[in-house]
Each structure stands twice: as structure tokens, then as C-alpha cells.
């Protein structure tokens, strides 16, 4: 009985606590909705303010950037103007110096040219004098040489005439000797020729004899072949088989007589 009461008490407590929690939860929800409704205008204000501040910051940054760009452009223009003026000054300075040097160089070259021309003229004159002298010397030498050649030609002509006469004499002597030797040779040659012809005649006679024998032999062979063919033809056409058999029998008997069988 006592324990039954305890269980009921516990169940009642649990249910009471559960109910209290439900009530608390409902209250919490309602409280949250109210807070949201109350705080919404403040949140919107904060956002709009932030946007306004950001736009202002952007505008300021743009103004600042424009001013920096303008300053940079002014500085660049100024620098370019400075460099241009310096370049002009340098150009003028170098042009002046170059002109001065060119003039001095022209003067120097003119002086050198004059000196060289004078020296060349001197050398040319000296060369002309030397050539003239040499020409005269050559002409003199040529005249002397011509005289020597004429003398030499005359001497050579005389020598040649003498040599020709001497050679003619020698040729006549050689001709005489040749004629004599030829006459001797002719006699000997005739004898040799006769001997040679005689020997050739003997060889030719032998050749003719050999040729005749060969021809006769060939002719004999032809005759024998002709006779053989005629005999064979006669044997085949004129003899009867019995007569042929008789000849064959005699041939066998001849073989027996020769002890072949």
C-alpha cells in the first residue's frame, strides 16, 4: 500500500515537471518572436548605414586616386621637358665639336696631299730621266747587235756554201761506193734468190704432192662410199632373202674360221 502510493507520487511529479517544461518552452518561443519584431528596424538601420559609409569611402578613394594621377602626369611632363632641353644642349655641343675637328682634319689632309704630290712629281721626273737613258742605251745595243748578226749571217752563209760543196763531194764518193756495192750485192742476191726459189719450189712441190694425195684420198673415200651405197642398194634390191641368208651363213662360217665362234 505504501509502495503504491510512492509510484503514484512519482508519476504525478513527472507529469507536473513535463507540464512545466511545456509551458516554459511556449513562453520561450513567444519571447523570441517579440525580440525579433523589436530588433528588426535597428538591424535595417545598421545595414543602410554601413552601405552609406562604404559609398563614402569609395568616393574618397576615387578623389584621392585622381589627385595622385594628376600629380604623376605633371611630374612626368616636367621630367620629359627637362630631358628634352638637356638633349638639345648636348646635340649643340657635339655638333660644334665635330665641325671643329672636321675643319682641322681637312687642313691636315690638304697639307699632306700637297707634300705627297710634290714627292710624286719628283719621283716621276727621275723615272722619266732614267727611262730615257735606258732607251738610248737599248737603241745603241740593238744597232750593235744588228751589225753582229749581219756579220754572223755572212759568215754562216759562207760556211754553209763550203759545207754543201764538201757534202756534195762526199755524196758523190758514197754514191760511187754504193753503186759498186750494189753491183756486188746484185750478183750475190741473184744467187741467193735462185737458191731460195729452188727451195720454195721444193716446198711447193711437196705441198702440191700432199694436196694431191689428200684430194685423191678424199676422192677415194667418196668413191668407196658411193660404191658401198650402190652395193648395199644392189644387195637389198637384187638379192632374194634366201641369197641374203646364204651370205649371212657364209659370214658365220667365216667367223668360225677366224675362231670367233
Amino acid at each position, binding site marked *: 500500500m505504501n509502495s503504491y502510493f510512492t509510484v503514484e507520487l512519482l508519476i504525478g511529479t513527472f507529469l507536473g515537471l513535463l507540464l512545466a517544461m511545456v509551458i516554459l518552452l511556449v513562453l520561450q518561443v513567444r519571447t523570441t518572436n517579440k525580440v525579433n519584431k523589436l530588433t528588426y528596424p535597428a538591424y535595417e538601420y545598421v545595414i543602410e548605414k554601413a552601405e552609406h559609409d562604404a559609398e563614402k569611402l569609395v568616393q574618397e578613394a576615387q578623389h584621392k586616386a585622381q589627385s595622385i594621377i594628376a600629380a604623376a602626369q605633371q611630374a612626368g611632363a616636367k621630367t620629359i621637358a627637362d630631358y628634352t632641353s638637356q638633349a638639345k644642349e648636348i646635340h649643340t655641343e657635339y655638333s660644334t665639336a665635330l665641325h671643329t675637328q672636321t675643319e682641322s682634319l681637312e687642313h691636315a689632309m690638304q697639307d699632306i696631299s700637297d707634300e705627297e704630290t710634290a714627292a710624286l712629281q719628283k719621283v716621276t721626273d727621275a723615272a722619266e730621266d732614267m727611262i730615257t737613258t735606258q732607251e738610248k742605251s737599248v737603241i745603241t745595243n740593238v744597232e750593235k747587235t744588228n751589225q753582229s748578226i749581219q756579220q754572223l749571217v755572212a759568215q754562216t752563209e759562207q760556211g754553209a756554201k763550203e759545207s754543201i760543196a764538201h757534202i756534195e763531194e762526199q755524196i758523190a764518193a758514197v754514191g760511187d761506193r754504193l753503186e759498186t756495192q750494189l753491183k756486188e750485192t746484185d750478183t750475190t742476191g741473184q744467187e741467193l734468190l735462185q737458191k731460195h726459189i729452188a727451195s720454195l719450189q721444193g716446198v711447193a712441190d711437196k705441198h702440191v704432192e700432199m694436196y694431191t694425195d689428200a684430194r685423191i684420198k678424199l676422192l*677415194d673415200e667418196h*668413191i*668407196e662410199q658411193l*660404191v*658401198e651405197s650402190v*652395193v*648395199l642398194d644392189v*644387195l*637389198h634390191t637384187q638379192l632374194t*632373202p*634366201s641369197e*641374203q*641368208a*646364204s*651370205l*649371212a*651363213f*657364209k*659370214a*658365220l*662360217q*667365216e*667367223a*668360225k674360221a677366224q675362231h*670367233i*665362234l
Partner: protein
Amino acid sequence: MSDTTTLVQELCANTYTVGDMRRRLGLLQEGAELALFNDETTDPVTAIKAAIKERGTEDDVAAVTAWGTEMFSQFTAATIREHISTLQKAVDALPIMTLYIPVAFPESELATMSAWGREECAPQLLFDVRVDPQVAGGCAFVWNDTYHDFSFKAQSKKYPGVITQHLNAYA
């Protein structure tokens, strides 16, 4: 054995060449087989001769039928092949002279030459005849594996100049 020898002697009595011998033995075998394997045959010897007469030439029939009754009477249906084989072997063992002749000789001439050959050279000699027109005026033969030419052409070659000498003497 002695019977075979007698039979071979009988075969050689009227057959002188190898060709004739083989042809006639073949004719004998054919006639014997035809007669002996016929059920209607009552007289074998007569039947064999009749069969040979029907198939052989005149010369062959005359030669085969002349071999005598003993030749035909020995054949029976059981022994014919053995006898023929024995005869062929005996014929193959006979001495043979290969004879080259210009034309085919008559049987009588061959008989004369064969008789002379069997007397002078070897008994039961058979000629193996070959026709060669080039051996006219004589003959040629092979004996003991050696060829011998006794034709007119060979003899004229053997004595060169003989013909022209005779012609010169005649001229």
C-alpha cells in the same frame, strides 16, 4: 628333270629363234588353259590342239602341234602353270646368239643356220634375230657379250683402199 630336258629338246627341234619360242610357248599355255578349264572337255589333248589351231598362225600351229602328244598330255588343270613356268625357265637358260640380219630370212634358211650353229657353236642354240639393213652382204652377231660385224660395209672398212684398187685395175 629329265622330262624337262626332253621337252626342251623337242621344243628346239623346230624352233630356232627366241621370238618364235616365246610366242609358241605362250600359244601352248593359252590353248592348254582354254581346253583344260572348260567343263565340256572330254579329250584334253585334242581340245588343246584345237584351241591352238584356232589362235595360232599356220607356221606356229604346225610347229606346236608337231611337238608330240607327250607334250600335251602332261598338262592338267592343277599342273599347267607349274609346267609352263618350268619350261620357260629352261628356255631362258638356253644359249642365245643375237643375230643382226639385213632382211627377215625364210624359216628354212634359219633352220639351216641354226643346225649349223648348234653343231659348231652350242647345242640347243637359239637366235635372237634383229633386222638391220646396214648389215647387208653378210651379218653381225653378239657372241659372248662381244659384237662382231661381218657385213659388206664393215669388211670394206676393215680393208680401206681395196675398192679403189680394184677400180684402178679395172680402169
